[in-house]
């Protein structure tokens, strides 16, 4: 999937991945896509809730090798 910005949130724990993602999204234009990689297992549910609450669309969420990848489109 194409993306415009990447955020490496590996090794960060709750709530830092969400706080950093919020900052990164703010640097994007509406419609642009942010890719986030995290290792916090709690971030799967947190990113879904964050998307639902803020209206930034979670395009995809995947897990591989104990890492989590999210694609989020700025509202």
């Amino acid at each position, binding site marked *: 999937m194409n993306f415009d910005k990447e955020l490496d949130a590996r090794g960060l*724990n709750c*709530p*830092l991945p*969400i706080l950093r993602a*919020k900052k990164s999204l703010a640097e994007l234009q509406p419609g642009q896509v942010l890719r986030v990689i995290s290792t916090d297992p709690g971030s799967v549910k947190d990113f879904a809730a964050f998307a639902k609450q803020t209206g930034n669309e979670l395009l995809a969420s995947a897990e591989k090798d104990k890492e989590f990848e999210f694609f989020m489109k700025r509202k």
Partner: protein
Amino acid sequence: MGATPEIASIEELVNRRLEELLPQKLEEALRQREESKTPSMAIIATKGTLDWAYPPFILGSTAAALGWDVSIFFTFYGLNLLKKDVSDLKVSPLGNPGMPMKMPFGPEWFKGIDWNKFLMPNLIQSNLPGFESIATMLMQQTIKNNGVATIEELRSLSQEAGVKFIACQMTVELFGFSHDDFLSGVDYAGAATFLPVAQKADVTLFM
């Protein structure tokens, strides 16, 4: 004086239609109002230890990231969380038997041991000179090892995100603090300021 039969039946029709439509319209209007409203949260932070410093700043910064309006009122020992320097916040094992006593270094099997289980009772542990400092050091190291943010970091992220910090002026005076001891950007107020904010808040928490 009765209406003619035609008018009576028209009225009945209108009434019936209104009864069908009104609840739908009301629900729609309420839903729109709910969606356009910015959620808000009011927290009272009363504890001044390293462990209890986390909940207000974690929830405050996260709620701000979700787009909420957040106010945190710091009172009594909670005032310690607003001091310019929070590196001296401690965690006490005294009366805190729920705190696992695990080593943040060494091999996995060693780190997995909860020393509370067989080392000594909580009361004796916490009476040992220096034990609080050891417990604090262990917790700070564990925080670091786990990629958990420091209090300074969460606090400045909260402030950047627009979380309002309000210090209880009464306790500032009671404990002999001065405004110079605290961060800039802190408001000083009392209970009469908190209550109307809490009244309007969707979430109110006492910590």
